[in-house]
């Protein structure tokens, strides 16, 4: 493997990692507040892919992007309202089963509506443009992904640390009951959290599928689980942690595929999870409470 190939793989890894980071933030935010692994998050990401395919077919692409982002956000809020909020007082296992149920439902619904065959993802003008840096050729989206990811994370950190709703989110994640006693409207904060998580998943979905070019009903399930692992790796509840975790998983996965062990690339993610849970269950940044959302 020469230096150019290495750089090429590194670039791909960073790009995939950026998408993973965006999804991982959704897990981390929801887990921080509800202590729930939102198993449906990966499928929200998949549905966002379908939103893009169908809106792109009938409207110009800037509008289609907006429709995808809004549609996915609304979907996230609705799922929370219908599937999770009735179970606030229920044991955690029930909520988790409900999350699995939503995931199952979204996958089956997508299979039913759009068939199990992969559908072509539209090429957003400009994003697939080939760029040459020295001997490395890559597409614009590969370079754009990490930049967008980091920008969004900075924005999110500002939101969480500097605004009133962000303060409410931190309060709820620290102590659920005390926060509600202080007059914080729990349901609003939770809806807002789901909205942000889904919005970021939609952005991630646009960047991810532009590179992959096809969407099928199960294309969200494995990336979803991997991103959860990324969130755990970085320290669940921590936004910078999710970012680092996403990049770490993305890069490692690309390297493993590059050295010809692609059957193990998925298994590797779970090995990371188990090792991390054993050595440091709080994750890399787990103790920094200030970012815990």
């Amino acid at each position, binding site marked *: 493997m020469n230096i150019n190939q290495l750089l090429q793989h590194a670039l791909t890894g960073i790009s995939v990692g950026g998408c993973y980071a965006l999804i991982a933030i959704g897990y981390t935010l929801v887990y921080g507040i509800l202590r729930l692994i939102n198993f449906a998050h990966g499928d929200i990401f998949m549905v966002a892919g379908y939103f893009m395919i169908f809106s792109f077919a009938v409207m110009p692409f800037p509008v289609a992007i907006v429709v995808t982002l809004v549609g996915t956000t609304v979907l996230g809020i609705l799922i929370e309202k219908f599937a999770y909020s009735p179970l606030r007082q229920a044991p955690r296992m029930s909520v988790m089963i409900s999350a699995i149920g939503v995931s199952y*439902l979204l996958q089956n619904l997508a*299979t039913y*509506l759009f068939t199990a065959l992969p559908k072509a993802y539209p090429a957003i003008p400009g994003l697939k443009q080939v760029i040459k840096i020295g001997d490395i050729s890559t597409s614009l989206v590969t370079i754009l992904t990490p930049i967008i990811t980091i920008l969004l994370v900075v924005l999110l950190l500002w939101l969480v640390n500097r605004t009133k709703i962000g303060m409410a989110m931190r309060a709820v994640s620290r102590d659920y009951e005390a926060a509600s006693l202080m007059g914080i409207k729990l349901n609003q904060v939770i809806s807002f959290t789901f909205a942000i998580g889904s919005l970021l998943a939609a952005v991630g979905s646009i960047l991810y599928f532009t590179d992959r070019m096809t969407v099928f009903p199960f294309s969200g399930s494995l990336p979803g689980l991997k991103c959860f692992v990324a969130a755990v790796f970085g320290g669940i509840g921590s936004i910078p942690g999710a970012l680092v975790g996403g990049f770490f998983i993305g890069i490692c996965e690309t390297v493993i595929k590059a050295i010809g062990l692609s059957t193990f690339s998925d298994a590797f993610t779970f090995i990371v999870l188990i090792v991390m849970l054993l050595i440091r269950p709080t994750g890399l940044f787990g103790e920094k409470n200030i970012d815990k959302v």
Partner: protein
Amino acid sequence: MNKLKFKDKINVDLLIYLAIVVVSVIILAFLDMNKFEYNYAISIIEKSLVYAVVALSMNIVTGFTGLFSLGQAGFMALGAYTTAILTIPVASRPNVYYMNGILPALENAVVPIPVALILGGLVAALFAALIGIPVLKLKSDYLAIATLGFSEIIRAVIASPMMDKITNGSYGLKSIPGFKSSVECFAFSLICIVLMVLIINSSTGRDFKAIREDEIAARSVGINIFKTKELSFVVSSFFTGVGGGLLAMFMRSIDSKTFQITLTYDILLIVVLGGIGSITGSIVGAFFVTAGKEILRFFDEPLVVAGTEIPLFKPGFRMVIFSILLMVVVLFFRKGLLGGKELSIKGMKKYSRKKEEQNIDEGGAV
């Protein structure tokens, strides 16, 4: 005197259960004799029986011990592959391993089917014991995701090129000897289910339930939490492994894609619909879901009413129905069909007695 009566009663119940078994065997034997006519029914019954075993084994760990484990598919894969490797007839092995050849040590390794099933269970149990040591210390949702992770790792290892000579890698295994008759399938499943019921109702089973209800209280009455959890996990995985072996026999050919996360979700669906923590719930649930999926197959075919095709009916519709059903049960009937209760002769007697009393009471009031 009193004691004797009590004993007699139990024996009567036992006799009724035995009678149910005998009647089932007779029905199955009848179906077997007319195999060509009832092929479809037989396959539904066999599949339900296999799923009943796996669902009940999942219930031991999830419903009775309160540990949310999502590793079912992985343990089933271990059991299924062990059973398959040890039972595929020697003559057809070159044909199965045509791509990569077979490990010389396994070339002639054939054991009788029951032994292969038990070995499959033991392999799954061994892995569960190893996995359980680190994983069972985790909290509920981390446990779920870690077991799910292990299940995926097992699947990846099975499909990897390094295992080609043992598991045939991504080509999968075929020519697995199936059930000779549905009675055989019934016998294997029944033995598993009876053993699991005995364990659940034993003092160990009561330890499981104590941990589920309140871990701290269980610890304070002297239950070794970790050992008991580990035991529950191992026992459950043993039967999941056997169930995997039975599934391999039912399907006749398997590959690593058979044991994806969706399989675990399918079993979870059965356990949740039947009622978490209900033995009979899992069994009834297995039949309900398996038969339901087959019967609702017409939902997947285009339906034409009065010349117009109803657009709702197309492939995938029945799975949508099942997912909605699952969500309805999770949200509104959190306890499932049976809700932690059991169907039993005793319960039915109690119920009918209550009804009678009610009738008498009502009669008195009028």
